């Protein structure tokens, strides 16, 4: 019963969030602010994680396959892991901790300090005003972050192969080009957009329905991350089954 209630309320929330903005220039400015907050401010952590993950995947692959399979397998494995799973799934999961908790606590604080009531009394449609810029910004900027993660991860794999003498650059290059299917990138970007939508909307939903004080804001923030991650994982399974089989 509780689950059905939340599902119904979530879709009603999304219907309100996706209404046409009341004032175009206010919406455009808010979206620009969110692009900076969600995208630019996440670039550092995305870059850092991708570089280390790309390098680690290269080392682990070399450790397991050297001697009995060709060295180009390292490049192939790094590419496939970065494009299919690490960049489009793990990066959004990490961002749900950063961006999702931020959205939930920001909107939750606005709720408990009556800022949302103030918007409503003024005649502002608070859900659309607060949530739509975040949704648009996330759906637009997450794929960009994921592409950055793919490039840096694959690049870091190449660097570690040469630095640690795991394989030659030519083998690595051959590996990352071998049997390349551009649909893998399309699949990765499709699911990234879906995950961006899930993370921002679920976090905003939990923030918006906060009541009480600081403790409840913290609780909403935690719920936002936990539910976002669980839903992303389920959606990952479903979309992978639909698109790759």
């Amino acid at each position, binding site marked *: 019963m509780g689950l059905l209630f939340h599902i119904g309320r979530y879709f009603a929330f999304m219907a309100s969030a996706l209404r046409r903005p*009341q*004032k175009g220039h*206010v919406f455009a400015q808010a979206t620009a602010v969110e692009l900076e907050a969600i995208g630019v401010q996440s670039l550092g952590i995305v870059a850092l994680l991708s570089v280390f993950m790309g390098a680690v995947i290269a080392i682990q692959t070399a450790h397991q396959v050297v001697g009995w399979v060709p060295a180009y397998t390292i490049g192939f494995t790094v590419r496939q892991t970065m494009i299919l799973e690490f960049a489009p799934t793990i990066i959004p999961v990490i961002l749900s901790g950063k961006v999702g908790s931020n959205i939930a606590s920001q909107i939750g*604080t*606005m709720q408990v*300090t*009556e*800022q949302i*009531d*103030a918007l*409503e*009394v*003024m*005649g*502002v449609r608070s859900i659309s005003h607060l949530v739509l810029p975040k949704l648009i910004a996330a759906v637009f900027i997450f794929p960009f972050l994921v592409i950055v993660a793919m490039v840096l991860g694959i690049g870091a794999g190449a660097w570690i192969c040469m630095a640690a003498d795991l394989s030659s650059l030519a083998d690595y290059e051959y590996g990352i080009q071998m049997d390349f299917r551009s649909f893998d990138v399309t699949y990765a970007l499709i699911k990234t957009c879906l995950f961006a939508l899930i993370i921002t909307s679920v976090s905003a939903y939990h923030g918006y329905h906060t009541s009480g004080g600081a403790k409840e804001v913290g609780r909403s923030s935690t719920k936002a991350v936990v539910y976002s991650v669980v839903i992303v994982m389920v959606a990952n399974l479903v979309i992978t089954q639909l698109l790759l089989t």
Partner: protein
Amino acid sequence: MIQVRGVDKAFGEKAVLHGIDAKFDAGQVNFIIGRSGSGKSVLTKCIVGLLEVDAGTIQYAGEDFTGLTPKEREGIRLQIGMLFQGGALFDSMTVLENVVFPLRMFSSMGTEERTERAMECLKRVELEGAEHRFPAEISGGMQKRVALARAIVGRPRYLFCDEPNSGLDPQTAIVIDNLIRDLTQEYKTTTVVISHDMNSVIEIGDNIHFLHKGSVAWRGDRKGILDSGVKELDTFVYASDLMRNIKAKLQGR
């Protein structure tokens, strides 16, 4: 004028308001007073549309607000200004941006005109010079004045003030009270103040509604409140030593 007729509101099994009738006149400071938990805030939230009533009607200048769709209500909402208990300022915006915000959303004014109007309101609440500061950088009394400036920037016909003096020192409270009274007279607004501050009631209350256990137990003016003959109101009014001393002095004369 705002007319409330037969309003009921319950949360689950718990009835908070029952059969509320009230009239708030234009150009007057109308008070809703009562003890904590008497239903003041719930009644106010019903009047401004933040909560839906279970029964009864709320009319703004004869138009039934309760019967309107959310879209239809927007027209009336644009005529409402509200000062919230905690100020409810947008903490990511400066003082000036807070005051300008309703104009950005709903007026056709240009940037210069909006800023000019906002500065006029900030000057009216004696806050020139604070326009580039953030809410967290100013005192509670200043935050209340910014919230008041934001509430009046759109020249509302209806002004609601929820506990405008809570958490303020007596001197600042008097400043806020005087501002509310002066703005009501200046803009001819229908002002509704929710409070349990008897000083404010005595100072600026024109039309007072006393709520007790979700019903209007008494209504009248500030002269009548000191000698209402209603037991619950007397208990509320003379709860402090100061008010009891005033009563004793008045009776001694």
